[in-house]
């Protein structure tokens, strides 16, 4: 493994071959917004919030899956990127029914944090307002599809860490939604070990623990770093 040097946001930084732009940026305290990425899980490059510009290239690169090159010049914040990120978050809010004031994750939600970070103050696009359901059949947990942003963190943690593969995604396009086993109620699942990892990694209030107050739910964040042990896997 050799060390490569590059610049991110005009700062000279160094990283190892095979490391991603996101990794190196974070090591150097340069924030890049993310949603589908979670340290310790494989990366899917799906939310596109982490896109950055690389000098000399017209297309944009998702920082979470793009490995660094010697001499690379990376821009994390530009007017274009800011506008794109604001749009992405807006698209997420308009896709399903995110009504923060009645959500268990209010003020403890990555989507909400992102909206603040990208400066999203109002929606220009219409709300799609699909009909989505809540499955509260599991004795300890529940899922509210209205809040799901299809980041697939729960799918990955359940498969890669817990090894249960209870979750997956069915359908495609905006019809896509999360399923437990053969689309059965979560409470009837016999692959689910009730470990609660999916609930821990969910960035929104889609997966929740029953009977927890908002204040208690807020404590769960520090739980995440335990996954770091599995660092380094991709795809």
């Amino acid at each position, binding site marked *: 493994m050799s060390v490569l040097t590059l610049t991110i946001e005009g700062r000279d930084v160094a990283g190892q071959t095979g490391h991603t732009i996101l990794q190196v940026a974070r090591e150097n305290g340069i924030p890049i917004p993310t949603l589908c990425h979670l340290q310790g899980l494989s990366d899917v490059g799906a939310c596109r919030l982490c896109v950055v510009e690389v000098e000399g290239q017209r297309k944009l690169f998702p920082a979470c899956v793009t490995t660094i090159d010697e001499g690379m010049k990376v821009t994390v914040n530009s007017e274009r990127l800011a506008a794109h990120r604001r749009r992405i978050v807006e698209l997420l809010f308009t896709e399903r029914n995110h009504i923060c004031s009645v959500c268990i994750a209010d003020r403890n939600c990555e989507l909400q944090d992102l909206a603040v970070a990208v400066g999203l103050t109002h929606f220009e696009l219409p709300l799609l307002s699909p009909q989505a359901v809540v499955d509260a059949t599991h004795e300890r947990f529940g899922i509210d599809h209205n809040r799901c942003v299809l980041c697939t963190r729960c799918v990955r943690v359940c498969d890669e860490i817990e090894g249960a*593969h209870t979750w997956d995604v*069915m359908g495609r396009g905006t019809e896509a939604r999360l399923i437990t086993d*053969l689309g059965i109620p979560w409470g009837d699942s016999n692959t689910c070990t009730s470990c609660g990892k999916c609930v821990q990694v969910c960035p929104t209030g889609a997966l929740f623990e029953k009977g927890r107050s908002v204040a208690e739910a807020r404590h769960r964040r520090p739980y995440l770093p335990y996954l770091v042990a599995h660092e380094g896997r991709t795809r």
Partner: protein
Amino acid sequence: MTVAADAPPASPPRDDKRWRQVDVRIRRLGARPDALIEVLHTVQEVFGYLDDDALSYVSEALSVPPSRVLGVATFYSHFVRKPQGEHTCVVCMGTACYINGAGAILNRIHDTLGIDAGATTSDGRISLLRARCLGACSMAPAVVIDDEVHGRLSPDAVQHMLEAL
């Protein structure tokens, strides 16, 4: 994974001879998880559609988690989860047919049969499907009724053909 390594081989959901055809195919493919789509094709060929029992059986036989089986079965529009009607009517909605009025044909069938594309009439007689280019663009708009391609159609002509079924 749903099946422990030493679990007994999965048994078919119903006592139906047709499962043998599926089993033969599964064995020929080595019961590997990556044979999932091939096996789903076989099940649909044999039974006409994929129901939950079938998906569950395939999941066990190939050691693929059930959620993954359902995820795959619903990703591809060729796979259907309900039995199809006695007759099928496929309207081409490819570009050439679309600009030649396939939309009006689809609307008329919708009005005549009272069903949307992808559905079957409540008496189970006719299933309405859509296709993306039948390779008969020169005959646009084209419709396939019970495996026979008809070209240069008008809404009236299609309605007559359906009423004659």
